[in-house]
């Protein structure tokens, strides 16, 4: 290891009941380096970060910081050692303002001992401005979109002036614009000599920002490489153990009958006059910037929110869902964008969650058909390659990506004819992403319709047949596959016709 290593991790082992998450891994980070960390879902990336931050305690192994061995017992201590992290699971206090979240745990005081609100908001505003994030620091976190919350969490961590900052999948919820902002932030930090550990499933990002990259697989160390000496395919191979050549190859034949027609759909304050048609066998994409209203549109179609105007037809029949129950009865399934708040019952088992929307089908006189329940759970654990010791494991104990797979499993399990996927690949590793794309293709090929919302442009462009571009609640255009170009879509997405 190089002598200028800021951080050295050696032979770290960590077990959870039923899972050996880390089987003796290690890598080193030098000062001012951006160090990538990649691996499949459940490989142990978040776990090592949490050990580093004192959230979990390692079973064995050593951590050296600036050459000195340290034992990190809690988060406060990690902070004192100059470590900071943006976690995969956002850790913001939802009822508090952005400013308060910035200073949470160390609120500045005035001379008289009272909280110095002026300082808090001025300082927060300054930091946000510096980082090019445009939001009022007095706003409550719960009023922000998921992406903005992520940006706030990033800004908050940067503001801490740490020696080493860890980003655990920071871009999962971001669109291009914010991703660019983030990369600028990282560049600035690097110039200041701050070291960074960067975890992502978007490999091209690793090549853009990282100097070196470490690969984990199944809790084991695979390799540490200079990014200049490797390639995307090489990384994938090392992560997954096989080559994935074509990420987005669409094999299905599109276009059957029209299944969903939406005319002038409006919801006051969120979107207006949205019209489009979806056909069976089609993958219909939505793209737009953060807060453009895509989520709101599909939630309304799903009956989760009330519409204030417009018409919808399902296979030619009039359709005005009053609740998700009706939508589901009509064969519509919605994978929500926020798995923790809307998708999962975290305290319950994987089995229970996978079957959550299917119990109406798998019962005899309303007694749960346990055989079928188990069968379905096992089927989708298998199909989605969910990494879990058993179907009885609580979802809260799964890695982020595996949690996402559970939600997808739930909707596959509940056989629908129109699948709406809102940011389905958030936090999902490359291998599994490919599986999900194949799965969507299979769905489309079997005559179902798929609506895909994604903030990740390559993804929508890669697999959608059409892309509807939304800007501030307005439909800017519906672009056909043949006309797809990054430039055009981004232009529409920023409000230019």
């Amino acid at each position, binding site marked *: 290891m190089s002598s200028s290593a800021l951080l050295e991790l050696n032979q770290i082992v960590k077990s959870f*009941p039923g899972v050996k998450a880390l089987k003796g891994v290690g890598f080193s980070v030098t000062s001012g380096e951006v160090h990538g960390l990649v691996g499949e879902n459940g490989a142990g990336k978040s776990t090592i970060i949490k050990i580093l931050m004192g959230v979990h305690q390692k079973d064995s192994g050593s951590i050296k910081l600036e050459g000195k061995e340290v034992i990190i017992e809690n988060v406060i201590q990690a902070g004192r050692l100059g470590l900071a992290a943006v976690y995969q699971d956002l850790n913001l206090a939802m009822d508090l303002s952005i400013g308060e979240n910035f200073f949470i745990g160390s609120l500045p005081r005035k001379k008289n001992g009272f909280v110095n609100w002026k300082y808090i908001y001025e300082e927060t505003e300054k930091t946000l401005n510096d980082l090019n994030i445009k939001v009022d620091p007095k706003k409550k976190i719960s009023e922000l979109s998921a992406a903005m919350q992520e940006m706030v969490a990033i800004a908050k961590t940067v503001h801490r002036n740490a020696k080493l900052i860890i980003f655990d999948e920071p871009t999962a919820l971001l669109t291009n614009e914010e991703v660019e902002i983030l990369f600028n932030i990282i560049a600035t930090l690097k110039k200041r000599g701050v070291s960074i550990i960067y975890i992502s499933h978007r490999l091209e990002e690793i090549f853009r920002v990282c100097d070196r990259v470490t690969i984990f697989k199944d809790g084991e160390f695979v390799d540490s490489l200079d990014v200049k000496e490797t390639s995307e395919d090489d990384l994938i191979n090392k992560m997954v153990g096989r080559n994935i050549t074509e990420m987005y190859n669409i094999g299905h034949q599109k276009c059957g009958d029209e299944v969903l027609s939406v005319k002038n759909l409006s919801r006051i304050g969120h979107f207006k006059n949205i019209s489009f048609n979806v056909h069976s066998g089609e993958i219909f994409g939505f793209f737009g910037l953060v807060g453009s209203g895509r989520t709101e549109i599909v939630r309304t179609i*799903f009956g*989760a929110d009330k519409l204030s105007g417009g018409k919808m037809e399902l296979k030619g029949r009039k359709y005005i869902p009053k*609740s*998700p*129950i009706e*939508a*589901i*009865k009509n064969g519509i399934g*919605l994978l*929500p964008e926020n798995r923790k*708040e*809307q*998708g*999962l*019952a*975290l*305290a*319950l088992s994987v089995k*229970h969650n996978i*079957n*959550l*929307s299917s*119990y*109406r089908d798998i*019962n005899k006189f*309303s*007694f*749960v058909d346990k055989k079928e329940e188990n069968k379905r759970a096992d089927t989708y654990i298998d199909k989605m390659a969910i990494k879990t010791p058993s179907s009885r494991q609580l979802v809260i104990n799964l890695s982020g990506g595996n949690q996402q797979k559970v939600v997808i499993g*739930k909707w596959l399990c*509940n056989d629908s004819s129109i699948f709406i996927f809102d940011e389905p690949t958030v936090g999902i590793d490359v291998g599994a992403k490919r599986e999900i794309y194949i799965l969507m293709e299979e769905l489309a090929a079997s005559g179902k319709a798929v609506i895909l919302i994604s903030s990740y442009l390559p993804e929508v462009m890669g697999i959608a047949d059409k892309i509807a571009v939304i800007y501030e609640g307005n439909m800017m255009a519906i672009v056909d596959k043949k006309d797809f170009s990054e430039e055009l879509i981004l232009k529409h997405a920023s409000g230019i016709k």
Partner: protein
Amino acid sequence: MKKLINKIKEGKLAEGNLILILIALIIILAIFSPKFLTANNIRNLVRQTSIIGVVAIGMTFVIISGGIDLSVGSILGVASIVSSMLMAGGMNIGLALLITLVISTILGVVNGIIVFDGKVPPFIATLGMMTAARGIVMLVSDARMIAGLPKSFTNFAQKTIIGLPSLFFVWLLVIIVAYIITTQTVIGRNLFAFGSNPEAARLSGINIRMLTYFIYGASGFTCAIAGILMTSRLSNGIPTAGSGYELDAIAAAVVGGASLSGGAGTIVGTVLGALLIAIIRNGGNLLGINPFILQISVGVLIVASVMIDQRRKASSK
């Protein structure tokens, strides 16, 4: 049996610690009071626990769903007064009890409507019901006991079947039905999902409106059963019947492992919780402890049991 013991040892059975605590308590009491383990005292014990035990079962549904029901005592009072007034008025017993069950269940469903459709926090909704229902009871009964109930009805609670009090069998029936509902049925699954994450439950197509009505209705229903049992046991309709039961019932469920933030709780745990509290009181009475010291001990022991339970759970992790 061996499997059960192993499960307890490995800390796998959620209720394991509670069973151990209960056993420890029973051994201690048996040593200090020779009367404790007599058939007669055991009969007393289960009889005394049955009524609050029934209420606690309904409460467990509500708590698993993430709610709370403060109105159980008042609805129990409604059941006591309604059933006794009808029977004292000469109505056929079966019909009177049926009407009582229906009325109490409706009151429970009203709680559900206020919570779901009115978006009122369960604490306030059921606090309102607690106040209002007690007012109704007092109004219709003129705040007086109702006497003159048919002997065949009042005898019921005195009966024993194969040596155990009839009340116990009613409780057992309620336990079994509730156990089946929570572990074997779709409603049970949905209940846990709803308690764990209401929004996810809604977006998964669970009919959370009906579920909420069912949950609070079930609590009203168990209150009716408890109210009827109490009326039979006390041979009178009692307008104050059930006052303060909300805390006892919640305590039984929470001691039994239910979480007031929803998503967690078991019927067996609640039964054990109810027994634990009852045994502490019964033991104290048998030992002839000064009532105030007994009161202090009850408080301390409930806290201690839960604390030990938490410790063991944490250490088995």
